[in-house]
């Protein structure tokens, strides 16, 4: 006689505190021309319909936002920045060259825009979203909602409907912008929802380097949030270097949906640096849409305390002979946690593609945790795709070696961590960005 297997039923009670919803209303949507208005109306409709994501969704399984005080957040009124901490001076300095071709500073309820006249004479548009809505409606129609679908989730719908401001960059056909363009989103203040929308179109044969940096002071005990959409189009034979840095304060909940589409023969060198926020959930997608398109994604992150950073990347090979190369490296301290979830997708017919993804993590404390989940979905048969994921600890032998030369423990650890990140530094063509990352390491390890 076989015994019947025992059935054990266990119930885990979810906390009764219901997730609070946002209090934003249709009246908070900024007015715009027909095209803009209809885009925002569809985003608003998605926003109303879509629930706040919870851990039952695969993409959010490792990132729990039930503590997000959504009902507390307000939009900053016009001129709010005047009563808040001013933008840190160091953020305004050029990072990738001696000087900027243009700079935009987005502030709560305000903006500052500068662009070299020589560039505007060539037809380059580099301005804030509000100005573009007034002055360049036709251009917006070619950029808004072209790569990121507001239906992707609650936060893309939120950013689509309520963007307070943003950046619009257009580089006309064949124009090479030598001096880099730079924007800073400075988000001081408690209980504020900073909502931004970044739009880039690099037209055929054009090239540009663009650095976008989001930052805020640390506000202990407070909560703020940032939601953004980043839409990038690199047209035929165009090239773009895009550096995105975030050093949000520890009180900021940071959400972004980003997607770049690269057309035939185009190339995108996309660099991420993330050290801030309480929690980040970032979706970054690269669509290699035209034959021979190339994309490289390089990510640097360093978490400490109880930070939680989640980067969800997707490399979509949609055409033959496309190449993607992703390397994300992160270090973790304290009780912090990182998640990297990556996918290489190769569409049917996208033959001769070459896709690479790797995620390496260095866990510097026993209580920190890194999750690394690579993935491949290949529907073509003549491709080369490789991936790798590792989570390691600081090794004793290099530390002992360094110490045996008189270098104290803390400095030895810093050297080993810098060495760990070196493959990322090797991929960054800008000394200033490398120095910034080194500074991040020094700050995090001090």
């Amino acid at each position, binding site marked *: 006689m076989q015994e019947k297997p025992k059935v054990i039923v266990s119930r885990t009670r979810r906390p009764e505190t219901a997730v609070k919803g946002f209090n934003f209303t249709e009246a908070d949507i900024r007015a715009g021309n027909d095209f803009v208005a209809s885009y925002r109306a569809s985003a608003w409709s998605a926003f109303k319909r879509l629930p706040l994501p919870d851990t039952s969704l695969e993409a959010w399984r490792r990132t729990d936002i039930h503590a997000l005080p959504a009902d507390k957040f307000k939009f900053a009124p016009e001129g709010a920045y005047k009563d808040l901490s001013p933008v840190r001076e160091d953020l305004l300095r050029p990072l990738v060259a001696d000087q900027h071709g243009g700079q935009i500073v987005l502030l709560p309820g305000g903006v500052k825009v500068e662009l070299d006249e020589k560039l505007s004479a060539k037809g380059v548009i580099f301005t804030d979203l509000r100005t573009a809505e007034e002055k360049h409606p036709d251009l917006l129609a070619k950029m808004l909602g072209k790569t990121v679908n507001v239906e992707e989730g609650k936060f893309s719908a939120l950013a689509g409907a309520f963007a307070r401001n943003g950046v619009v960059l257009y580089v006309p056909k064949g124009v090479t912008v030598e001096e880099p363009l730079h924007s800073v989103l400075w988000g001081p203040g408690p209980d504020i929802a900073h909502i931004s929308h970044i739009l880039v179109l690099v037209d055929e044969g054009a090239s540009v380097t663009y650095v976008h940096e989001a930052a805020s002071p640390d506000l202990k005990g407070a909560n703020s949030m940032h939601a953004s959409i980043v839409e990038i189009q690199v047209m035929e034979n165009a090239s773009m270097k895009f550096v995105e840095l975030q050093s949000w304060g520890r009180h900021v909940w940071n959400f972004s949906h980003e997607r770049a589409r690269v057309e035939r023969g185009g190339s995108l060198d996309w660099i991420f640096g993330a050290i801030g926020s309480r929690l980040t959930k970032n979706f970054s997608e690269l669509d290699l849409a035209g034959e021979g398109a190339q994309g490289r994604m390089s990510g640097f992150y360093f978490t400490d305390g109880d930070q939680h950073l989640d980067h969800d990347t997707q490399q979509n090979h949609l055409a033959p002979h496309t190449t993607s190369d992703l390397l994300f490296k992160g270090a973790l301290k304290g009780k912090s946690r990182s998640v990297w979830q990556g996918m290489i997708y190769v569409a049917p017919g996208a033959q001769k593609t070459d896709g690479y993804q790797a995620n390496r993590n260095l866990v510097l404390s026993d209580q920190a945790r890194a999750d690394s989940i690579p993935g491949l979905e290949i529907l073509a048969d003549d491709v080369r795709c490789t991936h790798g994921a590792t989570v390691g600890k600081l090794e004793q032998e290099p530390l002992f070696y360094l110490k045996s030369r*008189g270098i104290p423990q803390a400095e030895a650890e810093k050297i080993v961590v810098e060495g760990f*990140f070196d493959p990322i530094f090797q991929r960054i063509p800008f000394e200033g960005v490398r120095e910034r990352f080194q500074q991040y390491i020094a700050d995090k390890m001090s």
Partner: protein
Amino acid sequence: MSQLEIKNLHVNIEGKEILKGLDLTVEQGKVHAIMGPNGTGKSTLAYTLMGHPSYAVTEGDVIFKGQNILELEPDERSRLGIFLAFQYPVAIPGVTVANFLRTAINARRRAENPEDKGIPIPEFRKLLKEKMAMLKMDQNFAGRYLNDGFSGGEKKRAEILQMATLQPEIAILDETDSGLDIDALRIVADGVNTLMGKDLGVLVITHYQRLLNYIKPDYVHVMIGGRIVESGGPDLALHLEEKGYEWIREKYVEEEAAA
């Protein structure tokens, strides 16, 4: 004149006793060689003197400049004037030989004066150039990542260059197994012979007598079973080359049994 005095040193690895009461004094200006069969604790001695965390000292003292260095961290021992040339130095990717040496020099300067701004770059370049010329090294070497992809010989060169730059008073050369690689061995020997002087005391640890054809020791010690069992002049090494370790092992085991 400083000396490194090892007294009754007992060391465990993972609970197993490897060094069982070792006594030895190494003076500045002299070369001591420790020889012995495999598995007798020679590398353990080298690592313990430098302060590797896996080696637990259960008894004994190591006195240098009036301090028991067993109480010091490896970096403090280094700054006090002790150097270990590793048998298998690890790669430090992302740090060039030059930057590494500058960091090590600056760590010394800052330990003396926390306000120190570090060695001025031109002064450092000059120093490095001199040392590399003295050791007949290619200047390109300074720009490579430390030990990263280095051949066995290059690793030895890098160790000797570090020794030349950091100017220790006592250098421990762990060459336990390297007797088979004649080139590496010559590099080490040439380096030591170049740097040797009244301010440098050397403790060279080797399994093979061959290294001592290139480095002339003032004293030779034989280590068996975690202790020094025989000490003598250079002729002891020749004797070992001729007769092997068996005779000494037998003698030692007899003594042990009698005790």
